[in-house]
């Protein structure tokens, strides 16, 4: 209800300007408020887990802070990610990105994956830093998420990892590059996809994964 009240002034202005087409989508509905209340007041892990899953279906921007607060929870972090992955509002992606600095281990890996699933372009610099920082211990997960994001900026980072990154990260970077190349090709940039795959071929010694890259590169040669 507090969140609803806080939205009223902005909503009124927007209505007067005639630019609100889906006001109901931005307001917490009773079911969402109930789930939010469970998240913030319950001490029962099952209730909180269930609330996260409900918010994955019905939650809006108002649910983001409560979900983000659970990202460091050993058992509930993945439930919270379920909610944040599904809420399309930019605030959900921003909350995941901001959480990166304070997390480690599985919780950090999970949040990085969610950023990849959401294809959060703004997270590319953060993921680049994590990919190149061996001390954080999540380099492979970071490059995997860059592959899921699959933009030209993400592809550039993957090329950096392939050409100048540690040798033990190259297979993970190759796997991520295959996913990124598919995104690039499907979104009208086969040249960038080809360039990325050629980086894989150059970076890897002959073998199964290099052969996969060669096959995909050959397939892309016919696409403009």
């Amino acid at each position, binding site marked *: 209800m507090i969140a609803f009240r806080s939205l009223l002034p902005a909503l009124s202005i927007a209505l007067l300007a005639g630019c609100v087409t889906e006001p109901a*989508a931005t307001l917490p509905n009773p079911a969402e408020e109930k789930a939010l209340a469970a998240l913030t007041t319950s001490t029962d892990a*099952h209730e909180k*887990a*269930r609330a996260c*899953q409900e918010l*994955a*279906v*019905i939650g809006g921007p108002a649910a983001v802070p409560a979900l983000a607060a659970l990202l460091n929870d050993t*058992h*509930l*972090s*993945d*439930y919270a*990610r*379920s909610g944040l*992955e*599904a809420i*399309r509002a930019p605030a959900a992606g921003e909350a995941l990105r901001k959480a990166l600095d304070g997390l480690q281990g*599985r*919780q950090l*890996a*999970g949040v990085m*994956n*969610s950023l990849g*699933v959401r294809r959060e372009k703004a997270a590319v610099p953060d993921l680049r830093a994590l990919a190149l920082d061996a001390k954080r211990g999540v380099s492979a*997960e970071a490059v*995997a998420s860059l592959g899921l994001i699959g933009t030209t900026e993400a592809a550039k980072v993957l090329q950096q990892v392939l050409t100048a990154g540690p040798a033990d990260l190259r297979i993970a970077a190759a*796997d991520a590059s*295959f*996913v990124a190349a*598919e995104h690039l090709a499907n979104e009208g940039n086969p040249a960038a996809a080809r360039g990325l795959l050629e980086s894989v071929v150059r970076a890897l010694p002959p*073998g*199964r994964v290099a*052969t*996969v890259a060669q*096959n*995909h590169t050959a397939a892309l040669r016919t696409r403009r």
Partner: protein
Amino acid sequence: MNTTRRHFIKTAAVALGMPTIIPASALGKNGAVAPSNRIVLGGIGLGPRGRGDLKAFLAQPEVQFVAIADVQKARREVVRVMANRHHGNHDCVETREMADVLGRDDIDAVLIATGDRWHAVASILAAKAGKDIYCEKPCSMTIRESQELADAVKRYGVVFQAGTQRRNVDNFRYAAELARSGRLGKIHTVHAGILPLRESHEWLPAQPEPAPEVIDWDRWLGPAPWRPYNKDYVDGRWRGYYDFHGGAALPEWGAHTIDLCQWAASADSTTPVAFEADGQTIYGSYASGVKLVMRLSGFKGEGNWVVPGTCPVRFEGDAGWVEAADTGKIAVSTPALLDKGTPAEMAGTDPTKHVRDFLDCIKSRAKPAANEDVTRRGHIVSHAASIGWRLGRKVQFDPVSESFVNDPEANRMCSRARRAPWHA
């Protein structure tokens, strides 16, 4: 393409440009299978169904089973003993970590028969490792997983066969062929038998976790969200829980029966464009006008099907109908439809011919009957239909984008976060 011993031998001989002189026994004469023609198999998560599949694999002369990964000690020991007894050696190794199996260069293919929560992730990891894959059904928990699995199989060029063996069971094949060949006239309705739809969000009471060496609960959960341990789950009673059983149990039999309906309706490359539930029945509509009816069946003859048995299907055209089920029997609207002879009675649960199809495709690199493409769409139909049922209203679906049309609420149900670090 895998770089296996078989491929190496083939390519090395050509590259050296010289005749290969190999002993007859090594070429498989006198009934022996040449080492170069053997298919080295590993297993991941083989419970009762998985061991049934393994038995079918071991009955094939070229299969050599060498490793089992299972999070339950009792299960992996049973499989190890079973394999060693069959081969007459002590070569099969057991581990609770599937990476130990996927990381072995000598293994050509894997049999995956974990619980549903692991199927897609384990298959994707296997594809990344270059292994050919036979994976039990349902192969995915969500629409997104169905897509990711098929994409990974294509990406790495491996052979994939879903454990939807009815595509290779005689009466089901005969029924689908009657529909596809036009002998039933223009097909207007296909019926898929399903189990009751259910979806529990409850947690069983917490119990003390066993030692990981005995039952590794963390790995048992894998990509599914955490919940406290209870022995019932690992004893097989995980079905019906949302976190472990995707699609409100619709894919449990729908992975078979909806898949067969897709095949019979010549709809393997598409999906229905709308779904609407009425109680425990869900109606799908293809753009072609064909209706897909997903209706109750069961273990005790539920649903008024003509042919007795589990996993029934019925295909109706304007010139006749056919029905088939797991008893191996078939019923037709007119005896003339059986003029090519009644198909041999074979249990619908028998994977023998399906396993043979998979092994042949490992050698030929052709696509088996339940390949990644048909599996992708058949599973997407199951999941999309179950989302319509959950929402309790009609939903429109786009077969090309594989998403709901102008329906953000439904589209939010197409994916779930996977528990870290099992993201594949």
